[in-house]
């Protein structure tokens, strides 16, 4: 009930390795879209390894907190009941959605999550580019209510592992679209490409873990369109391949901003505001970038309409030819 009899992530590691090898080969022989850049791959895989070590270092604290909460649970939910697994599948996935949304929309948690998004590639190695500082940022706290309701810690750990394993295969450009019914319900490579895109139109979208229904429900779903291919990375791509810079750059940025803050309000804004927040609005948040993009699109539409409109004394075609 307390410790999981198996770890889905550990069991899946051989599959991760084989799948990456296969994706590299498919890219090499032109059978699928798959780009690998050596230093980018090295960064992703080293981040994955370091994340495991960070998890071990903080695992005791997380485990102790989870057990303490479970000892004060409301109900006792049996680990052997099918309904309990179904309920946990939905609740854990909902928890993941909100964790993920907060991790993008509030800078304190973005600082620990951003390094998953710094790759300018979107391949299976990107899936392993995991956080080193998520434990310190306390994102695991969001899962404690599940144990408080009465789901055994082992059950929650297994379901979290299942979710992580599911999310591995969607980090690929090799799969264009899944069947429509699948795209409607589940998170897919297409949906998650949008999530990793840095194009203004795609920012802050598709936070789902396994089920995309949460994004549809809470209004954060954006479909991938063929007219605008995804460009990957962060709005401001990193300027180097330094591993420690990748891990800590946003934390350092928060530190610099807080040190220069002129009031408690500014401190709160810099730490808990959306990424890109600044007191004078001189930096861009995702919302500001999207607003600018919408304005550009509207201006382009107006210009296109004006170009098509008949001009007095001449046809559009004759005008275009001048």
């Amino acid at each position: 009930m307390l410790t999981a009899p198996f770890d889905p992530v550990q069991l899946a590691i051989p599959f991760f390795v084989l799948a990456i090898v296969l994706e590299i080969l498919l890219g090499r022989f032109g059978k699928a879209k798959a780009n690998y850049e050596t230093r980018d791959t090295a960064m992703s895989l080293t981040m994955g390894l370091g994340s495991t070590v960070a998890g071990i270092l903080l695992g005791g604290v997380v485990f102790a907190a989870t057990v303490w909460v479970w000892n004060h649970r409301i109900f006792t939910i049996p680990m052997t009941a099918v309904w309990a697994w179904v309920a946990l599948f939905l609740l854990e996935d909902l928890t993941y959605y909100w964790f993920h949304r907060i991790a993008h929309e509030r800078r304190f948690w973005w600082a620990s999550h951003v390094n998953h998004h710094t790759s300018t590639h979107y391949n299976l190695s990107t899936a392993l580019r995991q956080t080193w500082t998520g434990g310190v940022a306390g994102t695991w706290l969001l899962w404690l209510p599940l144990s408080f309701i009465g789901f055994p810690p082992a059950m929650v750990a297994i379901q979290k592992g299942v979710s992580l394993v599911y999310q591995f295969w969607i980090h690929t450009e090799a799969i264009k679209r899944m069947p429509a019914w699948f795209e409607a319900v589940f998170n897919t490579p297409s949906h998650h490409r949008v999530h990793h895109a840095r194009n203004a139109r795609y920012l802050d979208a598709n936070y789902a873990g396994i089920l995309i229904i949460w994004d549809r429900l809470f209004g954060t779903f954006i479909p991938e369109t063929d007219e605008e291919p995804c460009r990957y990375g962060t709005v401001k791509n990193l300027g180097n391949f330094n591993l420690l810079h990748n891990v800590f750059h946003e934390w350092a940025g928060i530190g610099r901003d807080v040190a220069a803050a002129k009031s408690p309000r500014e401190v709160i804004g810099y730490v808990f505001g959306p990424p890109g927040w600044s007191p004078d609005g001189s930096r861009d948040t995702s919302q500001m970038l999207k607003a600018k993009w919408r304005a550009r699109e509207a201006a382009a539409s107006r210009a296109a309409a004006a170009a098509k409109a008949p001009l007095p004394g001449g046809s559009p075609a004759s005008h275009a030819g001048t």
Partner: protein
Amino acid sequence: MDKALLIQLGGSVVAVALLVAFAAWLGVARPTPPLDAQAARDLLAVEFPDHTPSAVWIAADGVGLIARAKNQALVIWRRGDSYVAREAAWSEVSGLQPRRGRISIRLGDGRPVFAVADDVWPPKELV
């Protein structure tokens, strides 16, 4: 730390090294030919959609560009098989001194190096 954990960690390090070596050997990076005028315009439109550059200089080795938009320098350079964009004050960029045919610009977390023809800086395109 117990022995099993250390062995597992050691094995993981070896596996990561092997996978990286495999990616280096057979992985296909994106093509990044030297920039030309059209590629430079496309990159500027993507990275600085709200700016209207008045002049563009492409590095002699084609790995990056500097565009001028009023008193700002829009800098784009290749990192791996992708590009990074940063803004800088034109006054700082114009004051750089080329050394052995190259200029180096410190831009926060990046330090792009561009080849300069004839050690002339700033180039006539940007002045």
